[in-house]
């Protein structure tokens, strides 16, 4: 799962090892003072979360890796 827009990660809802459903909110990226919920595009088990809360991300930066 990659960042659909540049911004700052403000909240992360998923942990490594967790099974998530498609459409579930994985994390929130704040851009231009607007919070954007980033959702899983598919179901699966998370292998690793690649960003931390407070971190600035660029467009297309990998956020979460699926197994």
């Amino acid at each position, binding site marked *: 799962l990659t960042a*659909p*827009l*540049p911004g700052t990660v403000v909240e992360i809802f998923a942990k490594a090892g967790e099974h998530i459903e498609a*459409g579930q909110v994985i994390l929130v990226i704040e*851009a*231009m*003072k*607007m919070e*954007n*919920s980033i*959702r899983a*595009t598919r179901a699966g088990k998370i292998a690793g979360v690649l960003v931390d809360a407070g971190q600035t991300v660029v*467009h297309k930066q990998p956020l979460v890796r699926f197994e």
Partner: protein
Amino acid sequence: MNFADLLPELLKGVLHFTWGNALMIAAALVLIYLAIYKEIEPVLLLPIGFGCLLANIPLANMTAGQGVMSVLYNAGISTELFPLLIFVGVGAMIDFTPLLAQPKMALLGAAGQFGIFGTLILAIAIGFPLNQAASIGVIGAIDGPTSIFVATKLAPELLAPIAVAAYSYMSLIPIIQPPLMKLLTTKRERLIQMEYTPKPISQKTLVFFPIILTLVVGLLVPEATPLIAMLMLGNLLKISGVVDRLSKSAQNEMINIATLFLGLAIGATMSAESFLNLATIKILGLGLLAFVLDTVAGLLFGKLMAVLSGYKINPLIGASGISAFPMAGRLAAKVANDEDQNNFLLMHAMGANTAGQLGSVIAGGILLAIVSKLV
């Protein structure tokens, strides 16, 4: 002195109170209610509402002579100081990166100004003289300070209804725009996902942009210089990175104080005698039309860009080519995201929105230049 003589003196406020005052106080209470309980643009509607309340208390003398509201009006509205101070703060809040990274968004910022000229023509058609029609048209800039700046210069007698229309419709953008967006775009168009592949923008470009824009606009449209210069000054304070204190003051204390004084002074012009007339109703109607025309023009231009780009541009971002920064940009992004949770148009919409902010200032300046020569 007997009691019969004293009574009229004690009751003079009540005796001078008119039905018109009662109606305007009711309107003031509606504005205050919307601000406090519906949180609709409270920063503006609360002071405007309270100012309106004060303007309709007979014999309070706040709005005449050396009354506090009159002093505020003469100091900050007649001189255009308050809208300009607000613009320094707005400039310090704007990030032009999305626009500079996608310069074609500037086209949408131009399309979003159509309402100004469409409304002007209609206002002339229903009998307003050119100076008043132009001031009413500028409601279509969808930018409070620009509307106030132009109206103060061209038709100060219409300032109150113009400011009220501009600010109240702006707060209604989330209600006015979405139905038009859905009506004028197809589901297929609304689902278009846009690649965000910005050109990298250097710090030097961001610093030079406000300086160069001030010079270019100033030389081409001198009448727009005060507005664009204050907006760009604020932006330079922010982007330069060396005057963080000044940038923060502009974004907070200064814009807050100027907004409070501006709201109060505008509200205080809403006395029953000056506000309750047919012209006000016409202006409120024309103002709404200006908002609708801007949105329609922006969306249609967005559709054209969608077709020309082979459906790589989502026409919804056209609706953010109006001013109303950053509300309009966020709204277009939200409508697209509601349609498809994985569609994020925010950066594109913000590019169009900042272009709209610049477009409205320039359009206001051009109008001022032309109309000042003609009347």
